[in-house]
């Protein structure tokens, strides 16, 4: 929003210019002040911790956890004690990078499934009668009323070998002559739960986007002879891309770093990079290596978010708006 004095765009009278400059300055100041809280937030809770971890990643772990001192004074000789060991360990064998790729795969698959499931639902809610919309949205966020871990434990019961689902499925597999399957402690269980937990984060931004679409565009397209598929593919879909990118970021990032779900449901093979990071900070008390892994994960996440934000912006300007 830019405040303009009436007539400021017409050839200026003698006082218009300085006043306009003053207003511009005030506006800039206001914008800067507005950016201050989020800037401070980022500095305090993102930049500063990341720098601390960068520092930690070149140090040795302490005797009983924590970090070893980064300098020694011996015989009045001051010496630094830094190491590249933690970073080299990352490349020592392919297992850490392999796990990172596997986790990226899980997160990507989760995002994809969430998109496929959320899109029809969000579209349905956006086009439903106004009276029901709030109720339908409430139903989407209803699961948040119970604790995240409680919901995961509920899935553990559903997936358990003694659960009705597994027993039922295994009746079917037995009839088809296939080996009985186990749902619990598998990557299927992990991805199912990742999708379940993150689905609302895809539905809500998509709904917010779809709800704003101008229905007259669809009418016009129909008048011009577009069939229903063309209406969707040429009008609705391109306009909804910013919503998809926003939802994808909200789903992808948390599912990439999650450790609780793979811990509880993943068994011996379903673990993700988040579990190994948690393991370094908690069980192994190896903060330096944990920092290395966290920084790598943060770096990859940042890159992907920048990419998504860029895509979202292009999509937003190219289409519809």
């Amino acid at each position, binding site marked *: 929003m830019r405040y303009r004095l009436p007539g400021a765009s017409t050839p200026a009278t003698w006082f218009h210019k300085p006043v306009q400059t003053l207003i511009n300055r005030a506006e800039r100041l206001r914008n800067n002040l507005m950016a201050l809280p989020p800037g401070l937030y980022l500095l305090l809770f993102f930049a500063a911790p990341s720098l601390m971890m960068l520092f930690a990643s070149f140090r040795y772990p302490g005797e009983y956890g924590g970090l070893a001192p980064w300098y020694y004074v011996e015989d009045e000789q001051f010496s630094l004690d830094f190491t590249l060991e933690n970073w080299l360990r990352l490349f020592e064998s392919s297992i850490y990078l*392999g796990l990172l790729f596997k986790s990226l795969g899980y997160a990507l698959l989760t995002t994809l499934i969430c998109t496929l499931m959320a899109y029809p639902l969000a579209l349905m809610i956006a086009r439903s009668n106004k009276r029901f919309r709030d109720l339908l949205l409430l139903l989407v966020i209803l699961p948040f009323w119970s604790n995240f871990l409680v919901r995961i434990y509920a899935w553990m019961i559903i997936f358990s070998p003694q659960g009705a689902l597994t027993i039922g499925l295994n009746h079917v597999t037995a009839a088809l002559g296939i080996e009985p399957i186990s749902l619990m402690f598998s990557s299927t269980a992990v991805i199912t739960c990742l999708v379940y937990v993150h689905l609302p984060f895809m539905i809500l931004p998509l709904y917010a986007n779809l709800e704003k679409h101008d229905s007259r565009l669809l009418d016009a397209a129909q008048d011009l002879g577009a069939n229903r598929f063309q209406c969707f593919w040429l009008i609705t879909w391109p306009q909804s891309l910013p919503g998809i990118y926003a939802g994808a970021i909200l789903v992808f990032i948390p599912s990439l770093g999650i450790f609780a779900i793979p811990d509880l449901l993943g068994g011996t093979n379903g673990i993700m990079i988040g579990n190994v990071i948690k393991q370094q*900070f908690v069980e192994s008390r190896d903060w330096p290596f944990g920092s290395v892994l966290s920084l790598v994960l943060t770096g990859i996440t940042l890159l992907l978010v920048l990419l998504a934000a860029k895509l979202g912006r292009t999509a937003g300007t190219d289409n519809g708006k």
Partner: protein
Amino acid sequence: MKKLLCCFVLCLSQFALADKTLNLFNWNDYIAEETVARFEAQCGCKVVQDYFSATEEMMAKLLAGGGDYDVVIPTQNAVEALIKQGFLLPLDKTKLSNIGNTAAGYMNKAYDPGNVYSLPYAFTTTLVGYNENKIAELGIDPADWSIIFDPAVLAKIKGKVTVMDDAEELFGAALKYLGYSINDNNEKHLKEAQAVILKAKPYWAAFNSSSYIKELTVGNIWVAHGYSSDMFQARADAAEAGRDFSINFVLPKQGAVLALDNMVIPKKARDPELAHMFINFMMDPQNAAELTTIVGTGNPNAAATPFIDEDILKITAIFPTPELQAKLETVSARNAKERRLANKLWTEIKVR
């Protein structure tokens, strides 16, 4: 709905009565509710419990500055580390009138000479709990570590086995299976143990230290590597639930990890007075006996023996015979370099 309401009222009452609170940091399933209730009645205070399921987890939380607990129940090697860190408050023996009840054999150990900082609470062994019917049906010998490490045996119970999510315990078991000491820090031996674990891993359902009691009791898994006290509870739970199978547990013949857990007071404790009261309370013969009769731990309290059922005293996995005792080892504290190697091998196991 009624339950919900009850929960709500309980939550409220917690705030209302919280004038005196004992913050206890304990192993999960390691104290009987009856005992806690009695202590609360006696001291007119509220006991708030936090739980851990692995020594490393507890150490990480304490050393990262988390939680100012009044009493912590660490295992002997952690006591040693906590003393060296200057984390503990020396105990005031004048406030501990029941101290004489503890059997002399459990006092004055190398990890805390003279019991300046710690007093024994209970002990457990880490062993194998199993579904008696299934294991008998399959003709597997449960009293041998091969039940969780030998692929030939595991092939019969694939996906029905969980092992502890704990480097010390799992490496300890694997080293014993190979005939080494659990405190072996020889890199070659540790790598051999890692190889054994990696070969067995595809047959395991999960690394699990916190919910194997339930999984065994429900029948989801047939073999679990875990603490003797937990297996005792799994057995009782299965019997109580009237399952069509029974749970039992046994010490593997190669020997196993013995964990002597202790009561300590951190320097940061909010109420050391109450903490001493709790320690003294737990050394009372009757209260100590409940650790065995209800929780199923081994008991260092000599005066408690008359209060323990004959049947439990006969379970060798809880009260090992002298021959078995000779094969049990306690874990010693590792130094940073040794810990680093073990952790690296452990991380590789988890990731592969």
